[in-house]
């Protein structure tokens, strides 16, 4: 009997040994010894650059220029859809084979990459000085600069200046005038706010809606420590204001079924006066309707004299060097090149995005719209400061719940129950 099964058993054992040799649960990844420099005689070192800006051809140009200036280094670029990148980048970075230079999102992704020790400390690198210090905090942790944001966006509604002028409206300075302006627009057959409630809307519009209701910039950190709750006034007030906008018909009908493209279409066609996304939508709007005069405005949810912030900014597309990279010096050289104001300006104007590098000259129409916002009092996007994705989903879910008909208190209570579960040790 034993003999009968000996051969298959031997094959299975062999397989087990092969698997054991390949295996380990991800937790046994060995760390690479870092070496740098041009290893082969005359053969350029190839570094991998991974990110999510797939539709920006300017990157190919920049890389070509960099390679000409640095003949010993070749850059191999891979781009991924941002959704996919957000969830799988860490796994790709683990063995150091890709992503010598990589982009990352602030907040949850930054925290998890930092926790896994995948960032190289860039604090003392000279090129860090090229960036505006206040705008690179999202890439810093425990006094060390791990990543350098290469994109600056304002997460506040874009508005149609022409429509506002047509109805003698100016950007409202408090909640009552915001409601009054919305009513004027609605009574003239204009949708006051195009709200993409099916996808990015709740996560974007919550930021300006809550910025003055909870001026403490650490409010979500405190939520994650259990020191404040979504059932507290700052969030229930925000939810009741969302509900008020919805119940008064200031969002387009069925806003929870409207995705970003549809909301942009409503706004571009002049059917809606405000678009509850952010400055990153301006290029798409201008592409569809080049003659529209645009600007940004944030809803001020408190009386004018209590308003502390004028808007929201996010510094993202944070460039870092993989701590498991075999070519860290070449990777830093690439980031150093990108930090030059001429190079950053070229990317900024081609990609229609501000970059927190000092003294860039912005020439693209989409960026000229928002040029004045650099001097305003804006705060970093609060949602990105929630590091637990389930808590983030509970927060945005409570907004969807009030728009679907729940009370502010009920929606806040349900969301807080999820938060409480996440906070259990």
């Amino acid at each position, binding site marked *: 009997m034993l003999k009968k099964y000996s051969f298959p058993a031997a094959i299975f054992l062999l397989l087990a040994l092969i698997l054991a040799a390949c295996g380990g649960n991800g937790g046994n990844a060995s760390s690479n010894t870092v070496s740098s420099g041009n290893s082969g005689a005359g053969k350029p070192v190839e570094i991998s650059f991974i990110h999510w800006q797939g539709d920006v051809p300017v990157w190919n140009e920049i890389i070509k220029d960099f390679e000409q200036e640095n003949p010993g280094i070749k850059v191999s670029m891979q781009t991924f859809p941002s959704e996919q990148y957000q969830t799988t980048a860490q796994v790709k970075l683990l063995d150091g084979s890709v992503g010598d230079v990589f982009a990352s999102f602030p907040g949850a992704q930054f925290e998890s990459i930092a926790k896994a020790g995948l960032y190289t400390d860039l604090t003392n690198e000279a090129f860090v000085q090229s960036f505006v210090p206040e705008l690179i905090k999202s890439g810093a942790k425990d006094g060390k600069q791990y990543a350098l944001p290469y994109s600056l966006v304002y997460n506040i509604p874009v508005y149609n200046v022409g429509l506002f002028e047509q109805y003698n409206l100016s950007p409202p300075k408090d909640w009552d005038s915001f409601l009054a302006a919305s009513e004027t627009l609605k009574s003239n057959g204009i949708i006051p706010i195009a709200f993409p409630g099916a996808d990015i809307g709740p996560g974007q519009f919550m930021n300006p809606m809550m910025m003055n209701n909870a001026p403490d910039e650490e409010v979500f950190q405190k939520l994650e420590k259990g020191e404040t709750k979504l059932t507290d006034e700052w969030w229930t007030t925000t939810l009741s204001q969302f509900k008020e906008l919805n119940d008064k018909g200031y969002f387009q009908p069925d806003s929870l079924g409207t995705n970003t493209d549809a909301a942009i279409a409503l706004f571009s066609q002049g059917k809606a006066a405000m678009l509850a996304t952010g400055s990153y939508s301006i290029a798409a709007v201008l592409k569809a309707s080049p003659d529209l005069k645009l600007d940004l405005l944030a809803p001020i949810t408190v009386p004018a004299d209590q308003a502390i912030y004028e808007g929201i900014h996010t510094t993202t597309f944070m460039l870092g060097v993989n701590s498991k990279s075999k070519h860290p010096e070449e990777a830093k050289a690439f980031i150093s090149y990108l930090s030059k104001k001429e190079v950053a300006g070229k990317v900024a104007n081609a990609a229609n995005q501000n970059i927190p590098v000092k003294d860039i000259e912005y020439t693209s129409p989409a960026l000229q719209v928002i040029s004045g916002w650099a001097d305003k009092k804006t705060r970093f996007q609060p949602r990105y400061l929630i590091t637990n*994705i389930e808590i983030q989903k509970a927060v945005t879910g409570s907004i*969807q*719940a009030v728009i679907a008909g729940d009370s502010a208190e009920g929606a806040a209570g349900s969301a807080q129950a999820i938060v409480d579960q996440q906070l259990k040790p």
Partner: protein
Amino acid sequence: MAVRKTIYFFFVPGLLLYAIFFLYPTLSGFYNSFTDWDGMSDTSGFVGLDNYKTVADSIIFKKAIGNNLRFMLSVVVVQTLVSLIVALLLTKNKKTTVALRALYFFPTILSSAAVGFIAAYVYDPNLGLLNELLRMLGLSALANNWLGNPSLAIYSIAAIQAWAHIGQMAILFIAGLHAIPEELYEAAKLDGGGKWAIFRRITWPLLAPAATIVVAYTTIQSFKAFDLIFVTTRGGPNYATEILSTYIYSAAFQNYKFGQASAASIYFLFIIAFITFLQFRALRANRVSY
């Protein structure tokens, strides 16, 4: 004996692929379900059954199971009935069979993600084709917020899931129908059997093996549905379309709690196995042979 050894040798590639792509990930996932591994760190700690308890207590996990059952039941009922009707129609109508089979089979060549993108545009409450069509037909009262209404969204996606796979299931039924001996129908007609009686006493009982496969496959497929939900609603609004696969994805790849995601996957495995077992038993009980 030498021949037998040679036969075993030919098993090796298949066995190796099975071990690498199924056995190892399954065992590894089972092991991870007892750890607090975050998916990236070099170390992980053994936490016993903590992950299983955390997942079982989770409000979102319970919502996901409820949504998944609603989704699965809707898809199984609609997909099985419609694909059976389509199969019967295609088998009877000889002239148009090829063209119609191609037409019904067409959606199955599309990826779920592509179907999801199309569905999102069709369902858009303001600019979408479905509401426009209903308004044109004078059925404005039926126009709805298909994906944005929390009580409707899961069924809207179930309808798309069923539509996308009806052709595939119809082909299984068509194969089953072709396997039924024509003599049985001729004998039934000679005995004066009506269409319904023939279907009830001959066709349906002899289609039981095909129906078993269709129902089991549809159950597993609808439980595993991920890309369609992810593309259309991402589990929203407010968890209304969160199902087990999106819960596991979120826990593993967004929240970096691989241990909990693995525990949820093990629950997932047992739930599917249990439901499939019940279905096989129920459908086998109805099986007949002549």
